[in-house]
């Protein structure tokens, strides 16, 4: 065919070697977007799906109707959680590079998404995270040692050796088992919320997926079922601009914001600054109250930036400008909350540095503890008999036979 | 030491099985390559099978009379690794190439290319045993179901020794039962063995009877005879023939022979006369193909000559008698009948006749009802030539008379045609000069 193709092909504004350009990210001034009542109809708040809810301005002041007016103590807790998440991520990244764990995924730059979101919910609310929401686990008090043992697949692994690293779960912590398949948790969260409603409880479910994953059919099913049954669920799209090397244009972000899909299903859609602790908290709080009072589901788009690679198997320098994240217009969540707290007189650079050291020590100590339960090369190992358990509730005869066969191969 | 399993070779022309006639070796014997180990028979051809390797016989399969499927194990040898074949092996090729007389050559000739094989084994057979350490038989497996394998294992039966009667030589359960029974009964007699006890089963006291297995040629004859009689509506036509002049010619020809040369019998003269007769009666020189429902008319005349041999009746064939002179017919007839009697006739020499002549010579009697050699449609029988008083030109004269007792397949040969043919033959025999007059305006 000699004719020139007329097919539109999305491309990011800057490839490696090019100057970063985030002019495509629609920003609203901090505090400019109104805060509707939690009872507002989805069709009456459609503008929130394309604007950007922000509380912290560029000077670190909290402004506007979305200010959650949190206590300084809560903010300090939030800051600590975010810093611990980052410290944990940093250490585990280095640990993977040192060959001591096989795989890791960081949440650099997205700490507020999980921490603020998690803190705005109740312990009885069921969380259906993706693999990049480790901040939720930190908030819910899951011990670092336990998370590290999962990364090590050692004798204390919560998954008993069956899952890839970072695929945590916690029944007591109400954190659903993380799946390697994208977006599957979204409609599952809706089902959980439907059951809560059926039972007449005021618990709600919340789930997080990346903008790339919103392309999957499960995303559509989640929104459809949430809308049809008015399920008490908060559906979060973490738009960190990248899905491995796939730019958000391939998820449909060029033509419409992700939050705007909500109103299409008759669901309230709110687009918020994912790097603004206060905004994330406030929007989550709004959606939770809406759900708990029978107002149904909310679709929240958290606009943020994936600060690091997709995983330890990825190298973003191959598809995006190396200093991309430094140009991200919405800054860094930890830095911004720190500056806000300092502005409030409730924090200092010194205390911040000290906290960094304290948290690094905590992470290091946790690691020392975790490796006692076995590493990839040394120490106690999980019994491979475990491979045959939990396939079903009770081990069936054919698996007993296979286990016996495996044992004979072992000896 | 390793084992070499020799399987029943393909003896040519779609043979699927062969009957064991006689073993020339037994377990424990040491044999040299090419040494005759067993005699088998297909249709009417007896074939001597040479050893493909030098070695010791470990086991043999089947007793005389047993039919062994082509490709199924026949005999197991123990061969030594690294030991070159002994002298006889080197010597045999030379012996094998000499014509006719040796059995090896006979086997080769009879079995076409397959014989020089026992083809599946040829790599092993050709080179001295040294080069073939593998014990596994080349190609071929014992075919039987898993359940039968287990039964054989449990009964201690070596499947290699069991003849398979199922499709493709597969061993079916009955075969195992038979093998098991055969073992528990002890060795079956081959040939006539004095029976002990009430062998006849009819109360006849022991020692009064003996049993002869119907095997080998006898069995073949029995099968062919009953089949011919069953399928063909025979009708007989007997005619007297005055062979006085024929006898005079015969004596004259014999008087001219050199000393030691075999003399002429009636047979070649009759064959020549028959050939001439068939020119006018081609409908008697046909073969009936029952499968296709067609009569195949042959231009050539291949005359079967019924011959009594120590093994029983055989019918060697004088091929293309129509193209032969008297001397040639006589010589060929003599050759094939002698070979048949000596049990050396090849398969080609025993098949393919288009019409058969049978003669009992001095024992001929005055009339007989010969059985047609299917798939032919006519058989000409010669009774005894004797001097008889006949009426000739109004007076009693002594003439030499020989009756012809012929049988025809009434499905395809009408009475009139049969009679006309015999009359024509009679004319030639009574006026033998006419045998040698070429036919004018041959078609």
């Amino acid at each position, binding site marked *: 065919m000699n004719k020139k193709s007329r097919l539109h092909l999305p491309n990011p504004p800057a490839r490696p070697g090019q100057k970063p350009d985030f002019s495509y990210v629609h920003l609203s001034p901090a505090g400019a977007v109104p805060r509707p009542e939690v009872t507002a109809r989805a069709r009456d708040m459609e503008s929130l799906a394309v604007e950007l809810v922000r509380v912290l301005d560029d000077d670190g002041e909290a402004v506007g109707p979305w200010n959650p007016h949190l206590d300084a103590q809560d903010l300090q807790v939030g800051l600590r959680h975010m810093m611990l998440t980052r410290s944990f991520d940093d250490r585990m990244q280095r640990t993977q590079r040192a060959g001591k764990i096989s795989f890791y995924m960081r949440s650099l730059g997205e700490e507020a998404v999980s921490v603020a979101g998690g803190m705005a919910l109740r312990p009885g609310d*069921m969380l*259906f995270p993706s693999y990049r929401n480790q901040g939720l686990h930190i908030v819910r008090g899951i011990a670092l040692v336990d998370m590290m043992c999962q990364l090590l697949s050692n004798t204390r692994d*919560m*998954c*008993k050796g*069956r*899952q890839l690293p970072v*695929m945590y*779960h*916690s*029944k007591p912590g109400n954190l*659903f*088992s993380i*799946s390697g*398949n994208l977006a*599957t948790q*979204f*409609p*599952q*969260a*809706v*089902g*959980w*919320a*439907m*059951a*809560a409603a*059926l*039972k007449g409880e005021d618990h709600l*479910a919340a789930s997080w997926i990346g903008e790339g994953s919103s392309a999957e*059919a*499960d995303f*559509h*099913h*989640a929104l*459809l*079922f949430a809308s*049809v049954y008015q399920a008490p669920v908060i559906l979060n799209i973490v738009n960190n601009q990248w899905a491995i090397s796939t730019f958000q244009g391939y998820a449909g972000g060029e033509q419409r914001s992700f939050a705007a899909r909500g109103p299409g299903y008759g669901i309230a859609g709110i687009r918020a600054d994912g790097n603004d602790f206060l905004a994330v908290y406030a929007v989550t709080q709004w959606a939770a109250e809406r759900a708990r009072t029978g107002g149904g589901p909310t679709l929240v788009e958290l606009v943020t930036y994936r600060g690091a690679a997709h995983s330890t198997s990825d190298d973003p320098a191959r598809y995006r400008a190396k200093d991309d994240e430094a140009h991200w217009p919405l800054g860094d969540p930890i830095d911004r909350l720190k500056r806000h707290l300092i502005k409030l007189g409730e924090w200092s650079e010194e205390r911040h540095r000290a906290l960094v050291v304290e948290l690094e020590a905590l992470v290091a100590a946790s690691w020392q503890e975790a490796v006692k339960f076995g590493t990839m090369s040394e120490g106690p190992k999980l019994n491979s008999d475990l491979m045959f*358990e*939990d*396939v*079903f*509730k009770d081990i*069936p*005869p*054919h698996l007993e036979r296979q286990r016996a066969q495996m044992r004979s191969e072992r000896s | 030491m390793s084992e070499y399993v020799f399987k029943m070779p393909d003896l040519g022309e779609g043979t699927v099985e062969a009957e064991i006639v006689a073993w020339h070796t037994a377990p424990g014997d040491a044999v040299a390559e090419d040494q005759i180990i067993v005699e088998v028979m297909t249709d009417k051809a007896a074939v001597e099978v040479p050893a493909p390797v030098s070695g010791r016989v470990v086991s043999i399969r089947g007793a005389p009379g047993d039919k062994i499927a082509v490709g199924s194990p026949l005999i197991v040898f123990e061969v030594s690794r690294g030991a070159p074949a002994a002298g006889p092996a080197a010597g045999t090729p030379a012996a094998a190439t000499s014509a006719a007389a040796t059995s090896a050559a006979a086997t080769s000739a009879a079995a076409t290319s397959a014989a020089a094989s026992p083809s599946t084994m040829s790599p092993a057979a050709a080179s001295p045993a040294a080069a073939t350490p593998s014990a596994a038989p080349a190609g071929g497996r014992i075919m039987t*179901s*898993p*359940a*039968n*394998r*287990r039964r054989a294992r449990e009964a201690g039966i070596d499947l290699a020794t069991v003849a398979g009667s*199922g499709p493709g030589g597969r061993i*079916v*359960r*009955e075969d195992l039962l038979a093998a098991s029974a055969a073992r528990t009964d002890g060795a079956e007699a081959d040939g006539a063995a004095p029976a002990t006890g009430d062998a006849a089963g009819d109360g006849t006291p022991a020692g009064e009877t003996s049993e002869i297995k119907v095997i080998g040629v006898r069995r073949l004859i029995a099968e062919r005879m009953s089949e011919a009689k069953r399928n063909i509506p025979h009708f007989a036509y007997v005619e007297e023939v005055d062979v006085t002049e024929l006898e005079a010619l015969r004596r004259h020809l014999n008087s001219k022979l050199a000393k030691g040369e075999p003399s002429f019998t009636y047979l070649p003269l009759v064959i020549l006369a028959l050939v001439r007769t068939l020119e006018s009666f081609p409908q008697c020189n046909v073969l009936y193909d029952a499968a296709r429902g067609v009569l195949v008319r042959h231009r050539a005349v291949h005359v079967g000559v019924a011959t009594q041999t120590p093994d029983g009746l055989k019918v060697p064939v004088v091929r293309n008698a129509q193209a032969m002179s008297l001397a040639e017919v006589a010589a060929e007839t003599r050759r094939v009948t002698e070979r048949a009697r000596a049990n050396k006739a090849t398969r080609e020499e025993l098949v393919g006749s288009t019409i058969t002549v049978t003669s009992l010579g001095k024992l001929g009697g005055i009339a007989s009802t010969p059985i047609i050699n299917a798939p032919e449609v006519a058989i000409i029988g010669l009774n005894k030539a004797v001097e008889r008083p006949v009426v000739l030109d109004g007076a009693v004269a002594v003439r030499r008379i020989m009756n012809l007792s012929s049988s025809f397949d009434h499905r395809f040969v009408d009475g009139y045609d049969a009679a006309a043919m015999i009359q024509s033959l009679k004319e030639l025999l009574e006026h033998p000069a006419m045998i040698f007059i070429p036919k004018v305006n041959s078609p």
Partner: protein
Amino acid sequence: MAHMNMIQALNSAMDIMLGRDPSVVLMGEDIGYFGGVFRTTEGLQRKYGENRVLDTPIAEGGIIATAIGMAVNGLRPVAEIQFADYIYPGFDQIVSELARLRYRSAGQFFAPVTIRTPAGGGIRGGQTHSQSPEGIFTHVSGIKVVMPSNPYDAKGLLITAIEDDDPVVFFEPKRLYNGPFDGDPHKPAVPWTTHPKGQVPEGHYTVPFGVADIVRPGSQLTIITYGTMVFVVLAAAAALGVDAEVIDVRSLVPLDVDTLVRSVKKTGRCVVAHEATRFSGFGAELVSVIQEECFWSLEAPIQRVAGWDTPYPHAFEWEYFPGQARVAKAIKAVMEWA
């Protein structure tokens, strides 16, 4: 005891479980107000309310995913997929999530979901209403796969499935909803009322998983089958006058290997029959297991009877369907070996 056809038996199972266990909910397309396109959930929404018997959007993936979420929140969902032909949009949630949840969370999370779906042909439904995909599911570790062939088994197995804490895919041979079918479409339909397996207890009872049913004991050969083929096989064997031991597998996963092996070791001859397509069908697993366990007992090669490896055709229904003629051929083939 009551006469029930398979639909009534299934309805009874769900009725009883809705009554016994408040965590049981039904969900599916057209199952609530309408009672289901096959009437299997008739009257249940009226009896138990909209909060126990839910109509859903036409989204098989969404039905199964939300069922999982509900199950994680303590409910015991029974999700209907209207035709097994439509189960594929939900296949990812079944395989990647439902089948693995207990395993990957070391038992911390599990979803006791029962997925019921009508399967099989013989109803002139063409390729989108006649498929038998049960073999595909047996290949996925972590789910149980069941197919009853009669009302008694249907009710008992469905109750077992609902009570089971493991996920179950429950295939219902729709040709047998109203009566046993011997493969001859020209004969008038026979209702379940005349059949002993149409006698169904009205109360709660279970038929266990992992136990095959010897429908007809016999000595000459073993015929292993399930679903619609059970009655075709019985008729074919009867017509041939052969003394066949006919086994209804009914629980595909977990499989009752012992019963199958015992039978084939006894008879030495085996035919495996199912309606599903032949290549890599569940029959291949059955044949393989029998070969492994019963090799030294086999008098003949194992024969397989199955649908042809084509999409299920409409006009050629009865040449496609493995009827008595195909079964008879297999029986003869296996009997003629000595």
